């Protein structure tokens, strides 16, 4: 009884993320929700729906930068709604929910390997690849390519204000891939030397545009201008039913522009950490469903939600 009362969705979610460094936010959210259903043990279908709905809302509100998290919650909600009426017997329905939720999680983990398998064709010998931000999907793809003896070089941006660039730099060095680190403002300088650009995604919007680490938009525009292919490497469970027209429409933890006086230099530089890249700058999305054009995202989402 005490366990059910003390259950906190946010803590569970964070715990999952902490325990497994390979876990992405949407998957952690699904895991947390599955755990919630198991622990709370609701007795009616309506109760389940309400429970998940309120928990998802709590989660989205308590976690800053909730885009990909929202994708996970959406998928689980959809999954629950579709499966609730499948079984007459409530107990088996619940069992089914929990089992399949876990199956979903394990399957999602495998999707990164699949992406690496699909995406390897996009990397060839002598390529110079620009990577912005740290994404597990991109990292695993690059590692997979290196393991297959493709000789390519990487340029990694610093990705301020987070130090994700450094993280990726170290990872690639460890894998034995020739890599160099540049400041974000140097992208324009080196874009002509680059063969292709790879980025990850926090979430993929309905239009096929990408929500990702801040700076992605600038990189994409530069790549577009230099006619370099710009690939987004992402798992399909990050497709989210959102349709931002610009960064204004994104749920932000901070104001995009803050003109009020701030004393410390650290807070001066800490703006929002995500931005939105419109679909016209994206060449293709490399996902576990295959290589998609941006317009195919909407198709996948429609299939996922309405069939």
């Amino acid at each position, binding site marked *: 009884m005490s366990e059910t009362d003390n259950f906190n969705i946010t803590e569970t979610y964070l715990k999952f993320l902490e325990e497994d460094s390979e876990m992405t936010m949407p998957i952690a959210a699904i895991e947390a929700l599955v755990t919630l259903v198991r622990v709370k043990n609701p007795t009616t279908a309506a109760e389940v729906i309400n429970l998940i709905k309120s928990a998802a809302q709590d989660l989205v509100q308590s976690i800053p930068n909730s885009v990909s998290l929202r994708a996970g919650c959406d998928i689980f909600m959809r999954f629950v709604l579709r499966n609730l009426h499948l079984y007459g017997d409530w107990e088996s329905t619940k069992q089914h929910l929990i089992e399949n939720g876990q199956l979903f999680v394990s399957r999602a983990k495998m999707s990164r390997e699949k992406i690496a398998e699909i995406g390897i064709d996009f990397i060839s010998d002598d390529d110079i690849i620009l990577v912005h931000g740290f994404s597990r999907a991109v990292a695993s793809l690059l590692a997979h390519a290196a393991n297959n003896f493709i000789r390519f070089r990487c340029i990694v941006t610093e990705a301020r204000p987070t130090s994700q660039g450094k993280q990726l730099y170290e990872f690639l060095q460890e894998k034995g891939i020739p890599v160099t680190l540049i400041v974000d403002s140097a992208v324009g300088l080196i874009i002509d030397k680059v063969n292709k650009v790879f980025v990850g995604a926090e979430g993929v919007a309905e239009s096929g545009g990408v929500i990702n680490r801040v700076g992605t938009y600038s990189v994409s525009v530069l790549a577009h201008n230099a006619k370099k292919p710009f690939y987004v490497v992402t798992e399909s469970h990050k497709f989210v039913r959102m349709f931002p027209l610009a960064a204004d429409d994104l749920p932000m933890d901070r104001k995009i522009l803050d003109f009020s006086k701030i004393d410390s230099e650290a807070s001066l530089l800490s703006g929002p950490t995500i931005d939105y890249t419109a679909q016209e700058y994206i060449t293709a999305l490399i996902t576990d469903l295959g290589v998609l054009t941006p317009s195919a995202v*909407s198709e996948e989402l429609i299939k996922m939600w309405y069939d």
Partner: protein
Amino acid sequence: MSETPKDASQTANKKPEAAAQAPEAAKAASPAAPAAPAGDAGAKKLSNKELKELKKQEKAAKRAAKKQASGITVEQQQVQAQAKREKKQQQREKQVQEQKKKEEKKRKLLDNKATKKTSLFSHLETTDERRATLLAIGSALNSPRASRITAAGLMVPVVASALSGAQVYTTSNFASELTTPKDSSADAAAAANTVDLAKSLANISLESTNETNIVPGVSSIIPHALEKSLETPQLVQSIKEMLINKDFIHPVISSLTFNLAIYKIVGSIPRCMAMLEAFQIVIRDYQTPKGTTLSRNLTNYLSHQIDLLKRARPLSVTMGNAIRWLKQEISLIDPSTPDHEAKKDLCEKIGLFAKEKIELADQLIIENASNQIEDGSTIVTYGSSKVLTDLILHNTQVLHKKLEVVVVDSRPLFEGKKMATTLRENGVNVVYTLITSLDTVFNMGVDYVFLGAHSILSNGFLYSRAGTAMIAMSAKRRNIPVLVCCESLKFSQRVQLDSVTYNELADPNDLVPIDFESPMERRSNKGILLKQFVKERHETKVQLAKENAPKGNKQQQQQHKNAKDKNSKAADASSQADAQGDQASHVLDDWQKLASLNIVNILYDLTPPEYINKVITEFGALPPSSVPVILREYKGSA
């Protein structure tokens, strides 16, 4: 060939003459075939054609020989051949002449039409054509007692009498003419719209000159001016078919057709709603004939109704989609279901369809689009759209957002006035402007452009009120997001790359004078015909007065001089109108008489998908590229 030597041996001495005659005879026998020189044939390599020619010559020679054998001399033969040739020549000339005449007639016809139709849009039905068709059918439908199909064509005595009266150009006659058809038609048919129809009918018929030709099978009431539009054989054919099937037409449909034709019901959603309501009544009143079942016959019966509806205006995409759905529903009915049950079911389904696809869809769209609109933003809209009006009102009244709305409008319909009025009455800040000042509008700090739609095509093109593309493109140029609110019922399977191949032509007269008082009334085409008629009568009257009384003419000229002094040069330009005591006329008033001038008034245009950021439907917000996906996934339901 094998016989020739035999023949030759029999009449060996006559052979040379016969051979010499051969080419002539061959020519006479087959005027179409080019005569090949006989001598060359042997020398050259024999082609198939030459071989044939040779055979022919030989045959002719044989014939000549035979004739000679039977006692006709060579001279006689020559004379005969000559006579034959002459006769043929005459016939040919006659044929050519006839053909020329026909061509001339055709050209004349084309010339006549060319003045009313741009060659670019010549494949589209003009309003004149539609009006003529509708008149023919409408009169047949609404005065069933009076009209009959005779050998000469369909006669509608009611208006025919009005026509005969129209020959005398006096003002006193005018009044009586106007009343005659109205009264008698009203008697003839009980439908509520008859008076209106008769009025416009009379108006149009009065416009015509004194002689009216009767095109076989076509109503005689069609005025001279409109008759030209009926020259196309296909059109006449289709009208004939319609007239044959006129007994199938339900009165609700004919009244709806009329309302659509005079633009009383406009907008693709209202048109679709009205049609569905009419269909409910039609289905309720439907009786299955003996020997067939409802599921088989009703579709056919509805097709007749739809045929008539098409005459009013081309069917909107929404109507097309609804009809397709309804036909499918009918075909799915189990033949064993009793009729009354099936009919009740269908009516309920139609009601549900309208509710689900239009009302609930609108609610979802409003809900969805509201997420997009931020407090304090400025929105540009074009024309009038019901869902957009509702959306803005929902945001200002329910969600208490402070919005500024710029309603962009255009000639000749000024639809935006309606939307601007509705919004202003509900306390929304409205800026009303015409599309000509678009550039200034977009410098006003606009946040979004919201557009309505007539249809969205499979390739993501937006098919909407003419002018939409201009707005979308201007907005895109300034990086202002363009959003389209559109029910999925408006999605079309069609693919179209330009707005020429398929479009709708409106009355070019709408574009000529600007009637500031009542732009909507002008659409009904009632007023303009009446005005034109009055003007025409007046002109004739003045002319008659001039001819009859030379003295009065002088006086008039004196008056004219006075007026000239007063109004100086400005009056001089329109002196003719002044002389007749008319008000100032517009420059383009007589455009129909200018052979080189065409006025195009098209209703729709296409906006390419790259200018549209988002399409908001009841399925959520989608990029325009997802239209085919929705169509594919919901083929059954939409």
